[in-house]
């Protein structure tokens, strides 16, 4: 397999259609919606939309119907960011180390990257609940005394994980929590070789909310580091909520909000 992956019908599979410029290498078969199978397999275009023959369409939905639901049984495509061999470090143009923090997480029952995201959701990063649900991920109940938020944020940024933007976004959300200690976060990032990624997040934070001294303090504490390779990190807009619509009666309502963990988690 050259960077291909088996896809199931999940939010993730739906989202990549039309986004990554995937070039399908295998036809999609329409599921048997009414107990009938189409005689001809359908081909997905790069836009991810199947164009059945009018005959097959009519058989499934009735004459004149143009709407159908695809159930993808198997699709192998070449999408670089889904290459399981490509680590976050490699995406940034760096090597990775055998992380003591990762070993600690494993000891606490956080065996893989998705379990870290699940723990972040437990701690209030509910923006990523759909991802956790789609991946059937879970995490044991780990207290903050056992695994502080600073350690969780840095663990999400470890270079040895397969590249997954949701992890960086969850780390960014955790980093924005009022309880985060910038000195502790910076120290851990340096020891676990996550400084470029955390600098990227901190710079985005400073740009988003320049009045919040936390980001400036974090940037001051972090050692200098070359920036990550272009395109290896989520765009800063992924770390915040942005709206172009503002209630004219609420002039104090910001257009842009840094995503933070919800309280009570």
């Amino acid at each position, binding site marked *: 397999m050259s960077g291909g992956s088996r896809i199931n019908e999940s939010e993730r599979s739906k989202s990549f259609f039309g986004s990554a410029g995937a070039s399908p290498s295998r036809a999609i078969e329409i599921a048997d919606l009414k107990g009938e199978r189409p005689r001809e397999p359908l081909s997905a275009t790069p836009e991810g939309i199947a164009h059945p023959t009018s005959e097959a369409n009519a058989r499934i939905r009735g004459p004149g119907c143009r709407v159908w639901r695809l159930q993808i049984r198997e699709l192998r495509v070449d999408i670089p960011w889904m290459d399981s061999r490509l680590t976050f470090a490699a995406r940034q143009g760096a090597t990775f180390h055998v992380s*003591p923090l990762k070993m600690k997480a494993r000891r606490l029952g956080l065996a893989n990257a998705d379990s870290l995201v699940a723990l972040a959701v437990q701690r209030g990063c509910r923006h990523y609940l759909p991802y956790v649900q789609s991946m059937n991920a879970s995490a044991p109940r780990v207290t903050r005394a056992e695994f502080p938020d600073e350690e969780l944020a840095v663990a999400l940024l470890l270079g040895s994980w397969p590249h997954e933007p949701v992890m960086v976004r969850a780390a960014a959300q955790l980093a924005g929590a009022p309880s985060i200690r910038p000195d502790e976060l910076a120290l851990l990032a340096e020891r676990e070789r996550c400084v470029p990624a955390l600098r990227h997040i901190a710079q985005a934070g400073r740009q988003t909310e320049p009045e919040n001294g936390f980001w400036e303090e974090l940037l001051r504490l972090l050692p200098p580091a070359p920036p990550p390779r272009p395109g290896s990190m989520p765009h800063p807009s992924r770390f915040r909520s942005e709206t172009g619509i503002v209630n004219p009666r609420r002039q104090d309502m910001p257009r842009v909000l840094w995503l933070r963990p919800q309280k009570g988690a």
Partner: protein
Amino acid sequence: MTNAERILTALDRHLDHPVELTLFGRAALALGFSNPPPAAERSLDVDGIIPASQMAELEADMQFWAALEQVNEELKSEGLYLTHLFQEDQIVLAPGWLQRREPVSRPTCRHLKLLRPAAADLILTKMMRGADDEDLEDIRFLLRQPELRMEGVALAIDRAVLPDVEEVRMLFERAREKVRHELNRDCH
């Protein structure tokens, strides 16, 4: 006692069984050679290489990782730490590096068995960042070591195995020119 000795002594104290650790970086210079550069003795951390043959065993060694955690917590207030452990495929080394390792006798340990790569292999590891000024100073120190033969260095550079990261390859090539200049200078 140097910082590296303090870190390793603490780790040795927390271990309850033998562990082999291959040092590299400035800790290897500070402890593995006579008359190390003063800068090497001031380094705040210890770097290690985990051979592929040791990886599975060490990953499963929970007591080692617990001991490491305790050491880092114990020395945190002094800014000392040991977190940079690399699998050998993440470091630039020449084939056969494992067999060319030399023992490190400082500090005296009960559980830790310390080793370092040969001088030529250590030079390769110093070339991963393009041989900046700091690394170049360390390379010059290594080039002066009695155990080293210039032709051995040239051979190691030619046979070096690099991690599959484009930036590392670019930086190594940049360093190659600098080291070649140093080798030519030493020959004259």
